[in-house]
């Protein structure tokens, strides 16, 4: 009896001591649970359900998944999505690294360069998309066509060319996104110690050799992190194609992410949207998993 009373007093003490902290963190816990954890679980449950509008009316087994994969568009969209990711790496991945290394070398006007590079990132996302939409405009009012025609060339259709529309969209995304990433790399490069470069100089390394032997290993950790973040973000790209082309011409710029939107809010079949979302989720989990494997290797190498 006495023991039990002591225990409950101790429990009471623990609650009283921790209650203020729990209360203050409750709003965050509430939001994270309902908006992130619960939605993630629900999307998996709903993807196995039969739905009418946004109401669950029954269990569907893997029917939704079969319908999504058998959709005539599925393979094309998967390929498109890989193309977005591929082009974003080709066009966008190395730009911030090169820029950061170059700016890091400068002793004149360095903060000016940082401001100029960051400027596009300071503009609102939609506005930059619209800006590029006008630059790509297919008649003489577009900036690129105006330049072409100044040189006496024919105007080009830009975003209406199904073959190149994806790299064009990626280019506009890079314009908006590269500045912030550059500053992250720059901050990392500022942490390279002088002695490492001096050691390389004693070994007779020229400028490019020093960059390769000293600067690259120093940023390998964050460059892998940025690679993974970029893949995660671009693989689920939805807003930019929606704003620029709405997936056109003839679905040439449709991505899986945009398809999840169309399934849910245009075709009103949210269960298919979530089934596709889960498929994308699994693909991206593989990427995240590979990141942890690779990161471990890098950390071991740097030891």
């Amino acid at each position: 009896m006495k023991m039990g009373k002591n225990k409950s007093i101790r429990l009471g003490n623990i609650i009283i001591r921790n209650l203020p902290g729990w209360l203050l963190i409750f709003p965050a816990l509430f939001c994270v649970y309902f908006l992130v954890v619960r939605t993630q679980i629900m999307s998996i449950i709903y993807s196995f359900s039969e739905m009418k509008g946004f109401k669950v009316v029954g269990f569907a087994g893997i029917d939704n998944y079969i319908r999504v994969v058998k959709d005539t568009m599925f393979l094309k969209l998967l390929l498109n999505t890989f193309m977005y990711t591929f082009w974003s790496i080709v066009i966008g991945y190395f730009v911030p690294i090169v820029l950061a290394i170059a700016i890091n070398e400068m002793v004149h006007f360095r903060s000016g360069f940082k401001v100029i590079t960051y400027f596009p990132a300071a503009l609102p996302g939609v506005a930059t998309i619209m800006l590029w939409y006008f630059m790509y405009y297919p008649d003489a009012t577009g900036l690129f066509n105006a330049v072409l025609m100044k040189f006496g060339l024919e105007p080009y259709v830009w975003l209406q060319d199904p073959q190149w529309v994806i790299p064009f969209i990626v280019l506009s995304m890079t314009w908006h996104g590269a500045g912030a990433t550059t500053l992250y790399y720059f901050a990392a490069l500022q942490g390279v110690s002088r002695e490492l470069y001096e050691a390389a100089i004693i070994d007779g390394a020229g400028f490019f050799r020093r960059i390769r032997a000293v600067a690259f290993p120093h940023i390998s950790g964050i460059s892998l992190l940025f690679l993974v973040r970029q893949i995660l973000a671009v693989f689920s790209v939805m807003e930019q194609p929606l704003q620029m082309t709405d997936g056109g011409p003839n679905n040439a710029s449709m991505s899986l992410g945009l398809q999840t939107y169309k399934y849910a809010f245009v075709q009103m079949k949210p269960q298919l949207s979530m089934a596709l979302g889960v498929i994308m989720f699994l693909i991206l989990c593989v990427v995240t998993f590979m990141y942890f494997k690779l990161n471990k290797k890098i950390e071991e190498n740097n030891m």
Partner: protein
Amino acid sequence: MKYKMDKGALTSTDMQQTKYKILYWSIFTILLVGGLLICVFPVVWIILSGFKDANEMYDLSAGFFPKKINFGKIAEVWNAMNFYKYYVSTFVMAAGDIVFTIIVGGLAGYVLSKVKPIGYKIFFAVLFTLTLMPATGRTVPLYMIFKNFPYLHINMLESFWPMWLMAATNIFNMILFKNFFDGVSNAIVEAARIDGAPNLKIFFKIMVPLSMPIFWVVGLFTFNGAMGEFFWPYLLITEPDKTVLGVQVYKLKSSTFSMDYQMLALIFAMFPQIVIFALFQKRIMGGINVGAVKG
């Protein structure tokens, strides 16, 4: 001329050699010309194009600068498109976003860093894992929550509440706050606690004043995010009186306004952020370092 090289791979001794001087100034020129041309020129172009009239736009011999810059046209576009309305609703949404992420995220960061009740480690581990998880497929369940919030049965469509709640859920900001607060001395907090100050008082009277840089950074980034916020307002809000800038700018594409009007309207979408960037450029770019070094 002496060069004082600092953090780069080039040293002051290198710079006495001509080949490195050439290298240095080539990089300098490419950065300057390329940077201005690629990063700044498009914005200048769209503003100048907006001042041209329709005929001038299609006239190839017209040149880069419009014949005359009529500032009255800015007012014309502003009135024709009712931009006043969109500014008001966007500022309301942005203010709410900032308040929610600072109060909810800031308090979470404070608890994780300084109060540490039982179980905080699990919560932090969950938060950290969530930042690495892909977010595909959450759109529909989120929409369903906003339409009919579980247990409470509240319909949040046509309001800014969904955006505010999502701002409150910004896990990245919670971790940013926590990391910054870790740098504030525990002794000050302990002393206040011994004096009997409640947690909320410690947060507002001690943590906030001591951590102004992080509040500035989160506030500025949240504001910038709100000014360009598109998808959720686009999906959830149809009332014209609550339409925000990001959505309206997108809608220009399918509007009946002439090209020059549409282009000039982009000024309104960019103007608040250009001003904010000009005023707080150091804080914004320094904020990136806060995230880079500690996050």
